[in-house]
C-alpha cells in the first residue's frame, strides 16, 4: 500500500506536466478549428460536464461497468487460450486462428445478432468489450510465455518435471511483463468496445450520449464524453502499469537460445493443415448459428455465402462488387497499417530517447485510442480531407496504440546485463536503442504487428464509412440498411479470409527474423 502511494507521488510530477501539456494542446487545437463545429475548448467541455454531472456519472457507471466485465471475461479467455496453447502446443494454430477470427467480425454483422440473443441490457456491450480485449492479450501472452531462457526450461526438465511445472515456475514469471502490456492495450479497447456496443440499441451509457451529442451539434458534449472515456483509459493504463511494476521485481534476463530445427512439414502437410482449419471454422460458424436458432434472414450460414458468391443468380456480379470494394479497402488498409506500425515504433523510440519531453505522447496516444473515432474522424478529415490521405490517417490513428505499448514494453525487456555494458562505456542513448533495445523489442514488435492486421482492416472499413465513402466499409453500411445480409456476410467472410492470409504471411516473415533475433520464440 505504502509502496503504491510512493510510486504514485513519484509519478505525480511528470503526470501533472503531461496533463497540463495535453490541455494546452487541446486548447490550441480548439482555437485553431473554431467555426468548424468539431472541437470544443477544455473550459467549454468542463462547463458542459458540470451542468450534467448526474447524467454523466450514471452513464459513466453503466459504460465502465460493462467495459470492466468485458475486460475481465476477455482477458480471462485470452489467458485460458494462451495456457492451453503452451500446454498443448499442437492446439496453438487453431486457437490463434479462432481468436483472430472472433476479433475480425465487424459490428454491422454481429450487432443485430448480439441484440437478438441478449435482448435489452448490457449483454452486447460486455461481449463486444470482451472481444476487443481477447485477441490482443492472447497474442501478447503467447510471446511472453516463451520469453524465458531455454536453460531454465532445461533445468525443469532435468528434474523430471513436465510442462505444467515449467509453466508455473518459469513461463508464468517471464510472461508477466507481457501480460501487463496486453492488459494496457486492452483497457482502452474495452472501454471503446463497451461504448460501440451501445450502438446496438442500448437504453443508456456514454455511447448513447455521444450519438445524441453528435447529431445535436453538441460539440462540448461530444468531447466531454470523449474526455471521460480517455480519462478512464488513462487511469486504467496507469493502474495496470503500477501493478506490473510492483509484481515484477527481477530485471529482464539474458535469453540465449538457438533456433530449433524447422518443423519438417512439407507443402502437402501444410495444405492439409490449412484445409482442416478452414473446415473447422466453417463447421463452427454453421453450428453456432444453428444451435442458437438464428433466422437465416440476417444470420447467413457458410452455405448461404457460397450460394451468394458462387452458385446463385448474379453470383458473378456479387463477386465483382465485393472484390472491387476489397481493392479500395486494401489501398487504405495497407498504407494505414504500415503508417500505424511506424507511428507506434516511432513514439516508443521517442519515449525511450527522451522520456521527459515525450511525456505528453502517452496520454495523447491513449486518448486517441479510447475516444470514439466518430468524434476524432472529423478532425482528421478537416486536416487531411476525405481522400486516401484522410483514410490512411484514420487507420493509423486507430491502430498505432498496441504497437506503441508493446514496443515500449519490449524495449524494457532489454537484459540488464546488456544495458549495463552500454552504460559502462557511456554509450549514447541512440546507440543503446539501436544495438540493444531494438533487437530486444523484436518479439513484442511482431506480436503488435499481428495484433494490427485485423485491426487495420476493420479500421479501414470504418474510415470508409466515416470519410471516404468507398470500399468494403461503404458497401457494408449500404447493404446493412437494405437487409442485404448475403452481401454483409460475404464481406465478413472476405475480411476474415484476408486477415488470416495476412496473418499467415506475417508469421513467415516473423519466423525468419526471430530465428536470428529471438530463437526462443520459435520453440
Amino acid at each position: 500500500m505504502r509502496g503504491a502511494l510512493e510510486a504514485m507521488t513519484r509519478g505525480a510530477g511528470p503526470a501533472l506536466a503531461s496533463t497540463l501539456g495535453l490541455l494546452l494542446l487541446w486548447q490550441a487545437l480548439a482555437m485553431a478549428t473554431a467555426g468548424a463545429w468539431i472541437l470544443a475548448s477544455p473550459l467549454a467541455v468542463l462547463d458542459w460536464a458540470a451542468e450534467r454531472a448526474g447524467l454523466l456519472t450514471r452513464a459513466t457507471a453503466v459504460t465502465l461497468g460493462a467495459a470492466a466485465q468485458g475486460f475481465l471475461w476477455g482477458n480471462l479467455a485470452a489467458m485460458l487460450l494462451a495456457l492451453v496453447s503452451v500446454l498443448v502446443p499442437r492446439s496453438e494454430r487453431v486457437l490463434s486462428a479462432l481468436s483472430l477470427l472472433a476479433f475480425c467480425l465487424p459490428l454491422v454483422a454481429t450487432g443485430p445478432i448480439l441484440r437478438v440473443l441478449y435482448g435489452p441490457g448490457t449483454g452486447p456491450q460486455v461481449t463486444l468489450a470482451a472481444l476487443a480485449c481477447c485477441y490482443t492479450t492472447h497474442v501478447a501472452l503467447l510471446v511472453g510465455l516463451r520469453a524465458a531462457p531455454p536453460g531454465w526450461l532445461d533445468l525443469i526438465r532435468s528434474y523430471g518435471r513436465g510442462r505444467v511445472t515449467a509453466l508455473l515456475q518459469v513461463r508464468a514469471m517471464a510472461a508477466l511483463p507481457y501480460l501487463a502490456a496486453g492488459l494496457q492495450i486492452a483497457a482502452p479497447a474495452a472501454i471503446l468496445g463497451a461504448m460501440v456496443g451501445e450502438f446496438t440499441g442500448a437504453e443508456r451509457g456514454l455511447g448513447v450520449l455521444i450519438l445524441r451529442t453528435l447529431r445535436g451539434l453538441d460539440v462540448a458534449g461530444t468531447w466531454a464524453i470523449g474526455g471521460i472515456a480517455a480519462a478512464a483509459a488513462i487511469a486504467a493504463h496507469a493502474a495496470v502499469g503500477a501493478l506490473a511494476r510492483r509484481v515484477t521485481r527481477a530485471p529482464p534476463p539474458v535469453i540465449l537460445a538457438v533456433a530449433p530445427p524447422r518443423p519438417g512439414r512439407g507443402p502437402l502437410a501444410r495444405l492439409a493443415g490449412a484445409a482442416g482449419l478452414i473446415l473447422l471454422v466453417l463447421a463452427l460458424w454453421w453450428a453456432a448459428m444453428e444451435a442458437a436458432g438464428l433466422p437465416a434472414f440476417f444470420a447467413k450460414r457458410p452455405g448461404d455465402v457460397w450460394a451468394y458468391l458462387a452458385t446463385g443468380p448474379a453470383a458473378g456480379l456479387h463477386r465483382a462488387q465485393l472484390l472491387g470494394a476489397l481493392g479500395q479497402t486494401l489501398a487504405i488498409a495497407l498504407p494505414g497499417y504500415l503508417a500505424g506500425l511506424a507511428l507506434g515504433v516511432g513514439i516508443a523510440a521517442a519515449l525511450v530517447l527522451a522520456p521527459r519531453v515525450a511525456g505528453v505522447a502517452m496520454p495523447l496516444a491513449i486518448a486517441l485510442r479510447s475516444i470514439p473515432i466518430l468524434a476524432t474522424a472529423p478532425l482528421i478529415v478537416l486536416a487531411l480531407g476525405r481522400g486516401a490521405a484522410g483514410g490512411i490517417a484514420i487507420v493509423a490513428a486507430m491502430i498505432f496504440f498496441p504497437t506503441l505499448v508493446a514496443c515500449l514494453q519490449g524495449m524494457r525487456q532489454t537484459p540488464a546485463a546488456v544495458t549495463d555494458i552500454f552504460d559502462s562505456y557511456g554509450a549514447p542513448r541512440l546507440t543503446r536503442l539501436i544495438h540493444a533495445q531494438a533487437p530486444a523489442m523484436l518479439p513484442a514488435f511482431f506480436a503488435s504487428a499481428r495484433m494490427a492486421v485485423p485491426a487495420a482492416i476493420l479500421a479501414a472499413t470504418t474510415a470508409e464509412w466515416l470519410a471516404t465513402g468507398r470500399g468494403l466499409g461503404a458497401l457494408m453500411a449500404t447493404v446493412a440498411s437494405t437487409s442485404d445480409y448475403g452481401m454483409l456476410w460475404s464481406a465478413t467472410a472476405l475480411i476474415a479470409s484476408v486477415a488470416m492470409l495476412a496473418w499467415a504471411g506475417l508469421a513467415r516473415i516473423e519466423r525468419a527474423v526471430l530465428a536470428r533475433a529471438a530463437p526462443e520464440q520459435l520453440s
Partner: protein
Amino acid sequence: MPPFRLTRRSALALGGGLAAGLAAPFAAPRLQAQAARTAAMQLSWLHSVQFGGSYIALDRGYWAAEGLEVVLQPGGPNAPVEPPVVSGQALVGISAADYTAAAVEQGAPFRILAVAMQKNPFAIASLPANPVNTPADLAGKRIGMALANTPVLQALCSLNGVDVTAVEVVPTQYDAAPLLAGQVDCLLCWATDLPVAMAMQGVEAVTMLMADHGYAVHSQTYIATDASIAERRAELVALLKGEVRGWTDYKADPAAAAALTVRMFPDAGLDLPTQELQADRQVPLMFSDLTDANGFGWFTEETVAANIETLALLGRKVTPELWDRSLLEEAHG
C-alpha cells in the same frame, strides 16, 4: 421458417462456437416474449419524442387497458429493426416502406400495418445564404449525406427532372457540422433532427421537404410478420389501439409529449427545448386531412399506389399486398 426459440443451452453453444467460449460466461439471454400478452416493439432509433405517442400510450395505461404489456426497445446505428421482428423477439417494428420493401425482397415476410409518418421526413437542409428551395437548386451543389442514401437522391432528381450527376455527393457522418463549416452546401437529412439541432444553436436552416416534391415513401411504419398476423392478431390490434390513442393525445398537446419523453428517459441525454421543437416539427408529417378523416396511421389505395411508384424509382418492386390495413381498421373500429 422455424419459430425462433432461444434456450440457455443454445446460447451457450453459440458463445462456445463463434467466439471460442467468450460469450458463454455472461450469456443471460431473455426468453422470447411469449408470456401471455407481452409484446416488444422495436423502435427505429434512440428514445426521443419521435416515439412520443408510444410513451403516452405506456404512461397513460392505454395498453394496460387492453391487457397488453408493451416493451419499447430503442434502436441505434447498429440496431436494424428487421432482425428482431423476423426472429420474433419483437412483435412489431418501426420501419419505413423502403426498408421494408428491401427486407421483403430478401425474404422477410413483412406487412405494413399502419403509417405514422404520412409524409416522408427526408429533406434537403441548406443555409439561407445559399439555399436549396426546389430540387432544381441542387444542380452544382455539394450535398453531404451517407452514401447508403444515394438511391434517395437519385429518386428525388428523377422525379423532378434534375440531372443527378450535376450534384456532388460528399460522404459525411450524419451531422450538421459539415454544412455549418462550409464543407458542403446542403445535407440530406430528416427534417426533424439536424435542422432542429441547428435551430437550437441559433441557425435557422432552409428545409426542403422531399415529400413536397413527389417523394412518396411512407415512414415510421408499423411492420409485423405474416406469422404474427396469423397467430397474434389480437395482440397486434391491441398494440395498434394503444398507438392510435397515444398519438391522438400527442396531436392535441405535443409539448406534453416532449415533457413526458424527457421525464421518462432521464438517462437518454434529452433536453426539453430540443424535444419540444422536434415534437412540433413532426406534427405536419404525421397528421393530414387523411388522418383527420380516418384516424391516426391511415393509408389508402391512392397513397399506396404513390408509394409503389416512388419505390420503383428506388429500385424496389412491390405490390399493394405489402400493406395490410385490416388490423388498423379493427383498432379504429
